[in-house]
């Protein structure tokens, strides 16, 4: 019934792009030669005022295995869908706009909806609107459940939320050289989940409601002169972030059936709320100049100052404990407030110098300075039993200081028209400080960054059919911020393309990162490699084949002291993966001047190592034209997901999507 109704509703409306292979008839090849018309009106009057495609359909799904993991990974549901809409409206009289483009994808219940509108009137304005609504679902016991080994499924640290993003931008063209613009963007998220309520040693999974919203306003002006361009922009943001955790049941949580000094701990009521308000101003100055033919100069100055104000409240009851004093209590209230600010300044300056026709020298300097500081107070009150009533005040003060600097010189030498050599040097230095401002001791840390990087590479264009490119970096550091940071490393990227014959093109790429940090006790050893080969083969007008294969390997060894007994151990991580994808596109024998198409292929991912996983996504697509501009499109797709260590998380899903596309 549901299916019949959906088809009945959608079929007459459907209009699907005659596949992307069929170009929308926006530019008739018989083009009105009218030379005079071309100079006055770029749009021949015979052109339809509206062109584009509408693609409606219905998706059937069948999921076996763990549906929660399916939703965490794929999350495509069943039902009627607006799969795609791409319309262009041209107003021959150019009243409100010259051209209006509207694009929409995956509406009607899919976890990601997009809408884009662009309207422009030449010499007057250009308006863009972009909207996205993306659903995030995450419920993965292997990731989140701390008690999974005991058979207790808490689904702790899971969520289901939607993020909606809207962006508007209007560019005005009052003159040729000064272009003002205004923009507004909103990013908001709302959802529910399960999180942990944590108070001293009391930990309970509780329901969670999240809401946050960021508004971004900005405006500026672009100045475009022949040898000098500049952009001046001023903007601001506001933030609202409200999170509430609550519980009104008897919750044994992670202390389930465990006695603590003879008592069973539980949580019977919780109300916890964060009220975060924030704002920021920011400024941008960008410029590029070409003062002489042999030099380009560019620079930017960026400044932002986000601030937040925090209000936190918490009330909880149950049988809870303060570990240090083994004090049992039944009611607690906590209040917190704080304010934080983060002035952040970035500047860069660079030039490209062409002292000789075949030599380019690129020099850049950059500095980035961010100082975060916050202050406030947290008050924790034990309310009951009255005999144990206490109030604890904790100052909330902290800082994080980052000063980062970078200088880089690159020289590009065009040895011949076919070969360019590239060499350079980068020096990176900085310092960071983090910690509690009131504690001068173990709570406060500072560190430095010192890194020297040599750069080499070449671009080789043997013929138009054969090109190759290699980049190499070798770095040596004396200080880095984190054990896993880039320290003494070699990085290499190589890529080659070869058009073997007119019907066959090949591309190969290789990348490598080898990083070592000899810090005592750590001895970080990291090596990752990616080898990739792709081919595009068009043996005939009716057949095209695209295939790619990538082999990636990753090895990471790093030492640490195991927390409880501080005994040295090594964290090993391995991720060795095969990834292949292919698509065979066949043009089937036609009928009545209509051309059906069949495509099949898909991708597979097989990995071994620390989390062996397989993920298969084969697909078959069939496009059957029913009439000029009307195509019946169907697609079958399979998702197969398995993890060797967490077999209960595997799923297999069959998706069949069918519908019509109407194009004009």
């Amino acid at each position, binding site marked *: 019934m549901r299916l019949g109704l959906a088809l009945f509703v959608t079929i007459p409306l459907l209009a699907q792009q005659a596949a992307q292979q069929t170009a929308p008839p926006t*530019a008739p090849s018989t*083009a009105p030669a009218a030379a005079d018309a071309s*100079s006055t009106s770029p749009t021949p009057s015979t052109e339809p005022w509206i062109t584009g495609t509408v693609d409606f359909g219905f998706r059937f799904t069948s999921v076996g295995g763990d549906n929660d993991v399916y939703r965490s990974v794929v999350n495509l549901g069943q039902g009627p869908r607006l799969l795609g809409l791409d319309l*262009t409206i041209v107003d021959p009289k150019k009243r409100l706009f010259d051209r209006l483009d509207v*694009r929409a*994808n*995956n509406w009607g219940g899919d976890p*990601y909806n*997009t809408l884009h509108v662009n309207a422009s009137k030449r010499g007057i304005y250009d308006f863009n609107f972009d909207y996205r609504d993306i659903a995030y679902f995450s419920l993965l016991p292997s990731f989140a459940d*701390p008690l999974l080994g005991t058979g207790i499924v808490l689904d702790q640290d899971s969520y289901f939320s939607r993020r909606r993003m809207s962006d508007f931008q209007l560019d005005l063209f009052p003159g040729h050289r000064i272009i003002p613009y205004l923009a507004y963007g909103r*990013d908001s*998220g709302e959802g529910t989940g399960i999180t942990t309520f944590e108070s001293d040693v009391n*930990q309970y999974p509780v329901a969670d409601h999240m809401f*946050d919203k*960021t508004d971004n306003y900005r405006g500026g002006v672009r100045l475009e002169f022949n040898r000098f361009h500049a952009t001046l922009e001023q903007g601001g943001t506001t*933030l609202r972030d409200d999170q509430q955790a609550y519980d009104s049941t008897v919750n044994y949580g992670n202390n389930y059936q465990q006695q603590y000094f003879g008592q069973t701990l539980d949580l019977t009521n919780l109300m916890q709320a964060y009220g975060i308000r924030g704002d920021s101003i920011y*400024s941008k100055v960008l*410029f590029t*100049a070409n003062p002489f033919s*042999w*030099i*380009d100069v*560019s620079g*930017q100055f*960026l400044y932002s100052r*986000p601030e*937040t104000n925090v209000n*936190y409240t918490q009330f909880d009851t149950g049988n809870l404990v303060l570990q240090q004093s083994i004090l049992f209590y039944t009611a607690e209230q906590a209040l*917190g407030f*704080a304010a*934080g600010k983060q002035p952040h300044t970035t500047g860069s300056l660079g030039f*490209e110098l062409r*002292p000789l*026709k075949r030599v380019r020298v690129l020099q*850049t300097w*950059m500095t980035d300075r961010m100082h*975060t500081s916050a202050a406030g107070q947290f008050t924790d009150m034990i309310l009951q039993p009255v005999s144990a009533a206490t109030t604890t005040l904790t100052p909330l003060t902290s800082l*994080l200081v980052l000063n980062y600097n970078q*200088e880089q010189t690159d020289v*590009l030498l065009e040895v011949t028209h076919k070969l*360019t050599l590239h060499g350079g040097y980068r020096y990176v230095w900085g310092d960071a400080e983090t910690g509690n401002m009131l504690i001068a001791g173990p709570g*406060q840390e*500072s*560190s430095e960054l010192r890194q020297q990087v040599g750069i080499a590479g070449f671009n080789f264009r043997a013929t138009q059919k054969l090109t190759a490119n290699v980049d190499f970096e070798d770095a040596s550091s004396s200080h*880095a911020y984190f054990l896993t940071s880039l320290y003494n490393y070699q990085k290499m990227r190589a890529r080659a393309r070869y058009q073997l014959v007119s019907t066959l093109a090949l591309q190969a*790429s290789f*990348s490598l990162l080898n990083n070592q940090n000899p810090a005592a006790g750590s001895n970080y050893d990291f090596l990752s490699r990616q*080898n*990739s080969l792709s081919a595009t083969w068009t043996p005939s007008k009716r057949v095209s084949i695209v295939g790619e294969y990538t082999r*990636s390997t990753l090895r990471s060894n790093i030492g640490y002291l195991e*927390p*409880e007994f501080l005994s040295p151990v090594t*964290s090993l*991580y391995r991720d060795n993966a095969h*990834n292949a*994808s292919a698509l065979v596109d066949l043009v089937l024998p036609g009928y009545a001047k209509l051309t059906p198409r069949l495509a099949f292929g898909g991708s597979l*991912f097989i990995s071994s190592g*620390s989390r062996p996983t397989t*993920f298969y*996504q084969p697909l078959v697509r069939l496009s059957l034209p029913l009439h000029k501009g009307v195509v019946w499109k169907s697609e079958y797709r399979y998702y197969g997901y398995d993890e060797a260590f967490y077999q209960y998380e595997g799923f297999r899903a069959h998706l069949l999507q069918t519908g019509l596309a109407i194009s004009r």
Partner: protein
Amino acid sequence: MLSNRIAALILLCWPVGAQTPAPAAPAPSPAPAPAPAYVGSETCQPCHEDIYNAFQKSPHKLVDTQKRRGWEGKACESCHGPGGKHAESADKAAIVNPAHLPPAEADRDCLKCHLNQPTHIGRIQSSHAKNEVACTACHSIHRNGPNGLVPRRAAAVNELCASCHTAVWAEFQRPYKHRLPEGAMSCVDCHNPHGSILPASAQSYAANEPGCFRCHGNLRGPFTFEHAPVRLEGCGSCHEPHGSANPRMLARAEVRYLCLECHANLPTAPGPIKNPPALGGVPPAFHDLLSPQFRNCTVCHMKVHGSYVNQDLLR
């Protein structure tokens, strides 16, 4: 020292640079001998009709109509140079074809007009420019597609980027990834192909903050208690944004290892710590990792991106 170096470089290059013949300036430059013969765009039409017709709907048509650029009626020759000889002889060699020029040289033609625009500021720092990926590798110059000179639809943008960055695209075939294969996002949502001040040509948000905050605004802060790697090295210190076999695109299979690799408990000198083996390495924790309760640090330290009220990121 720095200023000395700049001065030396400028001194070294100035005299040589001054002698270098200038590439074509925005306005037609007077030629020494017989002036190059400009014939106008309409002369090109009879032989290159497809291109000519497509060009009428291209934004580049402005070059033909706007006086300020100095190429009114000569848009074709603004990039291809004077076409007089070619029009007479129909000889390919008699006209400049930017497609056959070294990329850096061809790009300079584009940059004559597109010196800045909102996105071009970082070009000098762009790895595309340094690797001589020409503007025309992504932008079609004559033809106006459904949305301008470059693909705008997310799926088409991704296809274009993936045609070179095949290994990166392979990462998006992993189970946990941003929604690019589904067409909900495109590469340029996170990267600025023209260059950026951030590593990997990452987009910035609100002037100088990582572009990740455009969509993840609730993680922007500033937090009362920051988690230093988020600010110092960015989201990529824990996440593989292109795709991972690990939930939440984490860089390690289990959360505890991700945490312990930095919070390694390695010994250090007492007192205020200067240049420890790593930030966050101390003080040590005493959790029993044999207990499943402590195997996922973020179950308790849930505010791992930064906390508003708790120094240990517990709430």
